[in-house]
């Protein structure tokens, strides 16, 4: 049992972060804090993907030692380049032509995906903060409750106006 828990230590941490983030997003009244919660939530997903990419006993995904494609410095970079692009995607799309690797490497793909996701996260955060600036200008507050109260008053005033009109039209 203990082993089961400890083996998945990363996932427990991720689930913890995820829940903390979601809780802050929903429970907090302060708009900035809600964004902080949202970012925490997104970060937990980055960690989740990075954990997925970890291969047991694997090292950082940079070819080294016997796997390094070159014998000399200058040629090496060129060879890597060829292996990746020249066959018109054949080598990449074709699983039957594997390259034998001596060392174990972690999976690169989740890391790459998370680079994109981090960019998305930063963009979301900046749009959110820009919106908060505008809310502060328009309402003079960044507390959800206060903003909602002001909105409610506006809505009630409009409603009353319409009720008056509807009654007037009936009479």
């Amino acid at each position, binding site marked *: 049992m203990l082993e089961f828990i400890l083996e998945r230590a990363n996932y427990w941490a991720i689930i913890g972060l995820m829940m903390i983030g979601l809780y802050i997003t929903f429970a907090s009244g302060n708009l900035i804090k809600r964004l902080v919660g949202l970012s925490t*939530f997104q970060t937990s997903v980055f960690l989740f*993907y990075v954990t997925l990419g970890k291969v047991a006993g694997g090292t950082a995904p940079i070819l080294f030692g016997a796997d390094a494609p070159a014998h000399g410095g200058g040629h090496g970079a060129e060879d890597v380049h060829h292996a990746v692009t020249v066959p018109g995607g054949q080598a990449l799309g074709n699983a039957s032509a594997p390259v034998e690797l001596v060392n174990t490497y972690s999976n690169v793909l989740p890391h790459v995906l998370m680079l994109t996701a981090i960019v998305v996260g930063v963009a979301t955060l900046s*749009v959110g903060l820009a*919106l908060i600036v*505008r809310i502060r200008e328009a309402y003079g507050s960044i507390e959800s409750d206060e903003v*909602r109260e002001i909105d409610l008053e506006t809505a009630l005033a409009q*409603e009353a106006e319409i009720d008056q009109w509807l009654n007037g039209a009936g009479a």
Partner: protein
Amino acid sequence: MIDLLLRSAPDWALAHAAPLLVMVPLVLAPVLTLVPNGRIAWFISIAGTAASLIFSLILLAIVQTPETSGVVSYAIGNWLPPLGIEFRVDALNAMILVLVSAMGVLASVMSYPTVVAEIPKEKTSLFYSAFLACFAGLCGVAITGDAFNLFVFLEISSLSTYVLVALGASRDRRALHAAFNYLVMGTIGATFFIIGVGFLYAATGTLNMADIASKLPALEGSRTVQAGFAFIVVGLGLKAAMWPLHQWLPNAYSYGPSFVTMFLSATATKVALYALIRFLFSVFNPQFVFESAAFTALLMPLGIAAMIACSFQAVFQTDVRRMLAYSSVAQVGYMILGISIGTAAGLSAGLFHLLNHAMIKGALFMAVAGVVLTYKGTNIRDFAGLGRSAPWTMTAFAIAGLSLIGVPLTAGFQSKLQLGYALFENGWWWAVILVVFSSFLAVIYVGRILEAVFFQPPVNPRKARKEAPIVLLVPLWILALANIYFGITTEIPLGLASDAAAAAFGLEMFR
């Protein structure tokens, strides 16, 4: 028509239609930020969306020719799938692409007067830039065959949508708060979606949707796949405003600029719903979804709840845009109900209603945009007496409203009829009764507006400009006439929808 398009299109357009469809608006979006003049930005955005419409029609034509086996697959940068990103078009997303880009063209044609009236002058070209980014993102979601790429496009469109909604602030500051809440909900939805994709990746080791589909049957009963499924459904359900995840929608629709409301109502939720359908039917085996996961028991009540609860809420609204927004959630309920049957007929009815609803809500919100332009208000009171002062705008509004109710000889009737057939076929006669009941609720809320429009005296009889401008009237009437035309001959949309349903069921067959 199809032959003509295929014969007249140059070779490069035929070969590269799929990426160009997304790239043209995506490249034009940053270009627009440099354009100083709002009118030039308007022309560029019309050109960009029109180019996308042409490419999407070409794709539809290619998909429909028998030689192609119904699938266009394009490897981006010549990196072959499943490792590279694939743009993959079949009858299902060809239909969605044509819908989105046609709506994009109509929306950008009608946009200029309302944008000038509602957006500060110095922000006009930036506004169009955000619109094109949103449009490109929506097309990208619809066209991509890669699960993670779908997330990226979803976020491109969502982020620009938050900006677009927030720009309603110059008319009503509540747009800011609505946009913020939309941002929080939308981001949670998108993040749920990538958590789900992560689970699928962990189980299958691939991100290509067709490849995932081919590997999932071997993993039957895997807890990882089930968890991924749950996260994806919740995430996309949030984006598609599936009841009860629709809370962001009414505020975002009622406070955003009227052009944005019109465009989003006709496209954004539709594209998210497409993504949901793609995952439910093509990526996950329908058998897994509708039998072992007992999914019908979940989806069907949600659809019905949306139909009934949100129609009731719509009845009690005094703001026309808010009323129509609640009605949108209710209409999504019809589509979800159609999907939840889990048969080809049900899915086809759901897709048919999706097409029709885009035309209906597009026309309704376009007419509302015209009213906002001339009368500045969207309360039901502002609509009083408009039948006499703006007869063209309001007649189109009435046609679309009748179509929303589902009056015979309109498109809305035909899709509800198909939904009814599909429900009967499955023995869900009680659901048919609920559909009819919900349509009666639609009679009430549409009736309230039409009563004010045609039978009430105007609040302020001295109005300077009465009718909406011509650039708005033309797209509005195109949509209104389309509602009538497709209500009489259902051959084209029904054919598209049933082809699309067949394609959704058979994605793994092409592998």
